[in-house]
């Protein structure tokens, strides 16, 4: 029975993994990391390590949702949830008091609120990129990260949605944004990019949620069937609460599997893994990927129109749409790496599903998009000079770059260091294959992308045309705690996702495993000889 993909055999041989070596990493050639860092372009590195069967993959992924939460989870969840609660209190304080509790003033009337909005919405874009664009490009490695990246998208959009909602001041008038007939006899102005933004962001949130949920339906059905099987076979364990002193408090009549079978059963909509259903499911998935790709580009373009269509020097540039999209992908991938690298260490067997090759691929995307962002900074600067508009040039030199003139120069140079310089370490192969280095750079990039939005918004606004209008923005404690609170909301939602939902796209992961191939013997002719050198 040759159910092993020939590419995997070659890859394992090159990696020094003897056939039959069931212990992952037992016999690994150190130059190839965990065995996935094969440099031969004709060899496809394995997407799942350790010669896992379908059953192993199911057990690993479902185990995260079924086993009791580990200690680190509680140690992360309790602070995250507390910070989220604090952020909610700050929002409440803002609503009952007014936007004066923030550091905004007449000169700088957009600051941390819109910075946070653009920061979070940009974070979300990597999830859509991974699930949509990489799906259209048939990048199989995306299956290891797409579920968690899509979850991250949803949670980032949740955080992003808070800020435009509350920054308007009297939030109970937020419904004015929607075209509803009202007693003011005014319709919303559809010629304003701010209104386009309302439609773009709400469409994006909805489509991302549908895409994420549709991807989860089969995996929720797997969790449902496992709970159901345990209940039928009588192997389901009753609820046991760990008590101090080592003894557990057991409730013999309450079984968590009953709740699982019910809740996962409702959410999986009666999915029964029929091929006729899978066929339509794949069609729907491809359509969603196809429409999400222009959607994600349009959303951040429209976000950038909020700035670009104004006449403010520093905002009024045509490069903003592509520049914002590249920055969003850059920041989003950094956040994916920043979250998944620790998770890879903390969750058992995670490394077999998210391999070093996956991390290296993402590090390369970070390098590429970082260069694009750096190029955009340079172009913006060049055009400010070449355009010979003295106000625009003044924004760049006097408001941003020159430490002697610009009070926010430190923010500009933080952004340059984090976004342009720090990813350059990925030119060195050993560094882009080292998870610790990737994690540190991803952290820098996340910080840098927040500063990028701060630089764009605040340094352009704080000095207008006349020196008499010049002012400064400093955040208040409410500003700071609201932003920190939004990070808490994000982390809380992400930790709940890791605990209760399928962290990997199980069905998709199984579909790219070598055993999924319906005709394993037909590969010797075509696929293994893709090295162009062999054609001649």
């Amino acid at each position, binding site marked *: 029975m040759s159910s092993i993909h020939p590419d995997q055999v070659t890859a394992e041989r090159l990696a020094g993994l003897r056939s039959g070596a069931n212990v992952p990493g037992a016999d690994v050639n150190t130059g190839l990391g965990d065995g996935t860092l094969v440099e031969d372009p004709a060899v496809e590195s394995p997407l799942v390590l350790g010669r896992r069967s379908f*059953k192993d993959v199911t057990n690993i992924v479902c185990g995260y949702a079924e086993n009791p939460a580990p200690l680190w989870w509680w140690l992360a969840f309790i602070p995250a949830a507390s910070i989220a609660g604090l952020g909610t209190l700050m929002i409440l304080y803002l609503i009952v008091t007014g936007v004066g509790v923030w550091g905004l003033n007449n000169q700088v009337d957009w600051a941390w609120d819109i910075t946070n909005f653009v920061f979070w919405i940009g974070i979300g874009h990597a999830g859509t990129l991974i699930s949509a664009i990489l799906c259209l490009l048939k990048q199989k490695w995306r299956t290891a990260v797409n579920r968690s990246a899509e979850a991250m998208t949803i949670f980032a959009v949740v955080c992003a949605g808070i800020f435009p909602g509350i920054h308007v001041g009297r939030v109970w008038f937020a419904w004015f944004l929607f075209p509803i007939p009202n007693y003011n006899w005014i319709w919303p102005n559809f010629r304003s990019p701010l209104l386009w933004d309302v439609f773009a962001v709400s469409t994006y949130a909805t489509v991302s949620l549908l895409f994420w949920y549709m991807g989860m339906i089969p995996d929720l059905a797997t969790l449902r069937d496992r709970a159901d099987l345990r209940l039928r076979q009588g192997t389901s364990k009753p609820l046991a609460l760990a008590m101090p002193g080592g003894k557990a408090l057991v409730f013999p009549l309450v079984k968590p599997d009953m709740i699982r079978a019910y809740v996962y059963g409702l959410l999986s909509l*009666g999915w029964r893994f029929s091929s006729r259903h899978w066929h339509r499911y794949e069609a729907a998935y491809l359509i969603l990927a196809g429409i999400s790709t222009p959607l994600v580009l349009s959303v951040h373009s429209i976000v950038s129109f909020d700035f670009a269509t104004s006449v403010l020097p520093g905002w009024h540039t045509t490069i903003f749409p592509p520049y914002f999209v590249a920055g969003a992908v850059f920041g989003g991938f950094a956040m994916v790496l920043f979250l998944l690298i620790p998770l890879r260490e903390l969750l058992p067997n995670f490394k077999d599903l998210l391999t070093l090759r996956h991390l290296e691929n993402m590090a390369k995307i970070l390098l590429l998009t970082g260069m694009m962002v750096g190029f955009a900074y340079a172009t913006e600067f060049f055009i400010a000079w070449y355009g010979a508009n003295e106000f625009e040039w003044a924004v760049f030199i006097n408001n941003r770059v020159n430490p002697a003139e610009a009070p926010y120069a430190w923010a500009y140079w933080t952004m340059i260091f984090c976004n342009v310089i720090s990813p350059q370490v990925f030119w060195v192969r050993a560094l882009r294959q080292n998870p610790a280095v990737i994690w540190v750079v991803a952290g820098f990039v996340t910080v840098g992308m927040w500063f990028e939005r701060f630089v764009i918004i605040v340094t352009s606004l704080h000095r207008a045309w006349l020196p008499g209008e010049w002012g400064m923005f400093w955040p208040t404690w409410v500003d700071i705690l609201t932003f920190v609170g939004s990070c808490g909301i994000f982390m809380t939602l992400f930790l709940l996702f890791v605990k209760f939902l399928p962290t990997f796209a199980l069905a998709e992961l199984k579909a790219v495993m070598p055993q999924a191939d319906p005709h394993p013997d037909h590969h010797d002719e075509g696929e293994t000889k893709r090295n162009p050198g062999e054609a001649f």
Partner: protein
Amino acid sequence: MASRLSEMKGMIGDYLPGLPRSAPRFVTEDGTRVFGVIATFSTTPAVVHAAELVRDAGYRKWDLNSPFPIHDIENSMGFRKTQLPYHVFGAAMFGVLLAAALQWFTNHFDYQTGEGFGYIVQGKPTSAWEAYVPIMFELGVLHAAFAALFGMLMLNGLPRWNHPLFSSESFLRTSDDRFVIGIEANDPSFDPEATKRLLEEAGAETVELIEEDA
């Protein structure tokens, strides 16, 4: 057209299980209706090979359940490509037209003719359609996404509370690592003995009879 109609007809049957049903073709000894037989397989090549045999034997009402979508299964099973993309396209066009109408009505028509809606902001021409494009695109995408997910579910006859197949424990393992081919007793070619033999000869590991509750 014919395939689209049959896809929609199957959908209606799935949603109205309470319709009067014809007498069961096969019953067990104690009188319960037979849903069909299922055969289990444990590898992808085996189940695809068996599917090709079942297809060639002329069965119509049968299905293959697998933990993941198998590549090119529509050819191995011999069913037509889904019509879902056309439904989605229609929904997308509806969204585009809805957005155009909404913006034209509120920002042009109602300002020109309305009693009180007379405020013009920014001094731009009210009928300039170029500014309408972003929201036309967004609403088109929104409607297409809803149509893709809910259209897929409806054509699949989902959501539904239960299915006779869920009564089998070996069927539940399709969500893990097993493959199941199920042939329904409603199929004109179905015969308890011959169908079972076909599945066994096709390499099934187990063959099992599925009954319906009602």
